[in-house]
């Protein structure tokens, strides 16, 4: 079947053991305000626009069937993202590469063909394939097909996930995923609705199940200054590590602002404008806080 793939990134060194390819599937069930991949919020294809690159030639306005592009006499480029259907006609002719379609509709077999290209690297390094997003489970049927294909190839599989899915899905995933990279963003008592766009997210039941099934977990902890850089949050991480021996390691994913520009590119407003990339010493201090 077909799915919408945001990107297939090769030689990923941070998404599990060995040399890996990471498949980013489009679509997410959370709206984390610090997200550095906001182009993966929606599952459908969408237009990305880089204002710095635009030369104001107006070629896009001339070819757009929806009239989504407008160029003012001062060569200021306005896009009505609501009108846009991501047909890609503007991106095709944009001479400055300021416009691009984010996401690509691909057959599972097509994805597999890309993944196969690095087989020798996975095998030599005991690496494999990681699925990420967005939240990869949003395209569940596509994800399962991809996992099955990878299983058949003998690829080690990892799933990078926020854990916001049903126990039934957890059961199916456990059959096909070798390693879970589980994001711990905010505990159930923290302000989830404000920062994640949902509430009631609790990883403990999922972790219980994964423990039962003997599935290894790497806990990935985004730490955002002013949001979850609190002793309370670090305590929760320590407790999870203590309570679930299948957590092989917990990683601090310190906030960085490289995703800032992407929000604007797709016509969204970024709430954390003032926030700066976390310094290395700060990150190290957090790393110490989740030990023990």
């Amino acid at each position, binding site marked *: 079947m077909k799915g919408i793939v945001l990107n297939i*990134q090769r*030689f990923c*060194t941070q998404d599990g053991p060995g040399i890996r390819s990471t498949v980013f599937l489009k679509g997410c069930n959370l709206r984390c305000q610090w997200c550095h991949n906001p182009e993966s919020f929606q599952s459908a294809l969408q237009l990305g626009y880089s204002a710095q690159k635009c030369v104001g030639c107006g*070629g896009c306005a001339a070819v757009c069937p929806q009239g989504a592009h407008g160029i003012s006499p001062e060569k200021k480029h306005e896009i009505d993202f609501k009108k846009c259907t991501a047909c890609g006609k503007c991106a095709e002719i944009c*001479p400055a590469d300021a416009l691009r379609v984010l996401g690509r509709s691909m057959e599972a077999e097509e994805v597999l063909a890309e993944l196969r290209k690095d087989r020798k690297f996975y095998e030599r390094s005991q690496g494999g394939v990681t699925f990420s997003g967005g939240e990869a489970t949003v395209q569940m049927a596509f994800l399962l097909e991809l996992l099955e294909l990878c299983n058949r190839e003998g690829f080690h599989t990892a799933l990078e996930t926020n854990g916001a899915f049903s126990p039934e899905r957890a059961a199916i995933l456990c059959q096909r995923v070798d390693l879970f990279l589980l994001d711990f963003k905010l505990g159930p008592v923290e302000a989830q609705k404000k920062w994640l766009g949902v509430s009631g997210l609790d990883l403990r039941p999922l972790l219980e199940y994964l423990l039962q099934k003997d599935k290894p977990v790497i806990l990935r902890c985004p730490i955002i200054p002013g949001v979850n850089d609190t002793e309370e949050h670090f305590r929760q991480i320590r407790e999870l590590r203590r309570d679930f021996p299948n957590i092989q390691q917990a990683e601090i994913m310190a906030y960085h602002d490289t995703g800032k520009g992407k929000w604007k590119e797709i016509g969204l407003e970024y709430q954390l404008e003032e926030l700066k990339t976390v310094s290395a010493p700060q990150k190290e201090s957090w790393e110490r806080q989740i030990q023990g």
Partner: protein
Amino acid sequence: MNQSMRQIRHAVEFTEIYKSSSDKYLREARCVAYQLQHILQPLEPEDRLAGMMRHELVGFSSQYGGIYTYYFHEPEFLAAFQDCREELDEPARKKAEAALEFWKLENTRKKVANRFIRQYGFEMGYSFHSAGYANCDCRVAGTNVDFQKLMDLGLDGLDREIERWGAQNENSSFYQALHLWVNAVRNACARYAREAEGLSEVCTGERQARFRELARALKNIQHKAPETFLEGLQLMWIYSVCSDLMNYGRMDDYLGDLYAADLQAGRLTEEEGVQLILGLYRHFKTIGKIHDCRVIIGGVGRRAPEHADQLAMAFMEASRRFKETVPQLTLRYHKGMSEEVLNKAFQVNAEGCTFPIFYSDETNVPAVEKLYGIPREEAEQYVPFGCGEYVIVGKSTGTPNSGVNLLKALEILLHRGYDKFFEETIETGLPELQQYSTFEELYEALFRMMEPTLQRLAVHKMMNYQVAGEEAGYLHQSLLMDDCLSRGKALLEGGVRYLNAASEVFGIISAADSLTAIKKLVFEEKRLSLQELVAILDADFEGHETEHKWMRDAPKYGNDIEEADEMATRLFNDVAELTTGCGEKAGLNRYHIVSVNNSMSAEWGYYCEASACGRRRSAAISNGNGPSIAADQSGITALLNSMAKFPTDNHAGVINNIRFTRELFASSFEKVKLLVQTFLENNGVQLNICAVGKEDLENAMKHPEQYQNLMVRIGGFSARFVTLESSIQREILARTTYEG
């Protein structure tokens, strides 16, 4: 006496000695013996090893500065002569004038040019600063002599060898000249022994002891085979300096036993070993041959791998501390090699040294065996010299003397033989653009056009060897190259076992990407006619931004995309086959392409019009088997997969440049190591690693004073980034950096 006067006197005396011998072997031996008395430089108080030389205006050398055998620097001679003319008396002036007229015609390069003109009626271009897509040079470069033989026999042993073979082959002037050559090296040792003794008398403490030891070593090696690491290193160096050799072969192999024995006996510590090597490195730096100066470590086919590995560690440590562009330390990788050596190699690279360069024995030994049709044990002795051309230690020549720019060739084809940049007609009788109805017709026309030129280059190469062979015996090489002594023949007169050569191709990937774009846009999708496309290139894309985007977006080599990679391998194979065939017709044993460019890929790019790969006029062209600049956008494994698709047994060397951030090395050391190992174990030939971030390069352009030690790997050599011309800096900056 002032410098000019001294230079002119030297030239006159050298000329007289040259003229006084009718036998070319004895002439060479006497000329070299004479020049060594003058070109060797005094031992300095900081030196750890003896031996340094400075060329004169006329002399003998195998490859000095792109001129060779009997070389002559006419402009410099004229300048010096002008400078001291008034101080010379009439007879001296006359002699100088006579020497000038004599060497104008007698220098070997001129003789090659004349020979070529006699056959073809014109002279080949000698540089990329002139019109056309091909040029050639004169030299006998890079042959790696058998230093092991030197270590085993020592100078007296070599004399005995000469006598033995001379007796068997009816003693000739060739053998007599070889004795003279050995004696010239011995005299150089004696001279430096005296200087070392002199310095030991004026120095104190550690330095005094050091010069005493050096004097002892220099005395011993005048006769005996070396018995310590110092003696071995000194003998290798003095032989190289006297010969003007610039590539030093498998040093860990031929010096490993001496080094290990010293360590074992407590005569030397590892730190002292590193210090001695650093002493050698300082001499390398003074000579400054950044495109040569190869030192090879590791690999299969070494006599005592454990001893050699001990020394390999010391070489890497010295390179780590030295952080200079020389030597081009090269590690031959193979499965099952010492993990300690391998880790050290990655650690040194991770510090941004650009060394050691990796070569894969897994790939190259079987490839060299097949390519040259030689036994496995000979193939195991392959080494890349210079920018990376293969030779077999002690058994083959491999000079790359010609350059072919495939992107420029395509440009000239698309302009019906006209070099638009230089406004000169290069080829005639080519079809109008509208006559090409298929891509295949265009592709075939390119090769039809190039064939006669490539054939001339091969003939020129052969003449280069023939004329050099007629002029000299190349005694310093003949002595240490199979099978000169046993055959009684000099290197280039049937002595060397394999008379091989190479032709350097430039811009192969830029040309391939351009062909892919033309095939797709003109012949498959028919978005443009060929005339329209060429008009857009002539306008350097101005006013054709959308079409420029189409060309940029066409598939590019380096992304693991079949369409683009197939074109690259097809072009590579076809030019390889054509070149090999031209070599056979010219009478060379083996003549193969190499894709191992130095900074010339950026420099030659300046003279190239815009190309269909999307490259603008005068921008850099691709380097070696690296992608079109910054066209690799699919990750490092995709690039390495593309690089591993070429056949490995139809060329005499390629280079693959990759760049990582230092942060990636630091955070994912093991993964980077496994990445490189996987490549080298799966058809990868070699890898130049540059560990530096783009930000560092940008900052270095803005604040060069803070980045004096920033090293980059360009292609077939390394450089200090801040010393490069801005066009080359920009090209380096534009290359993709992988972050993981």
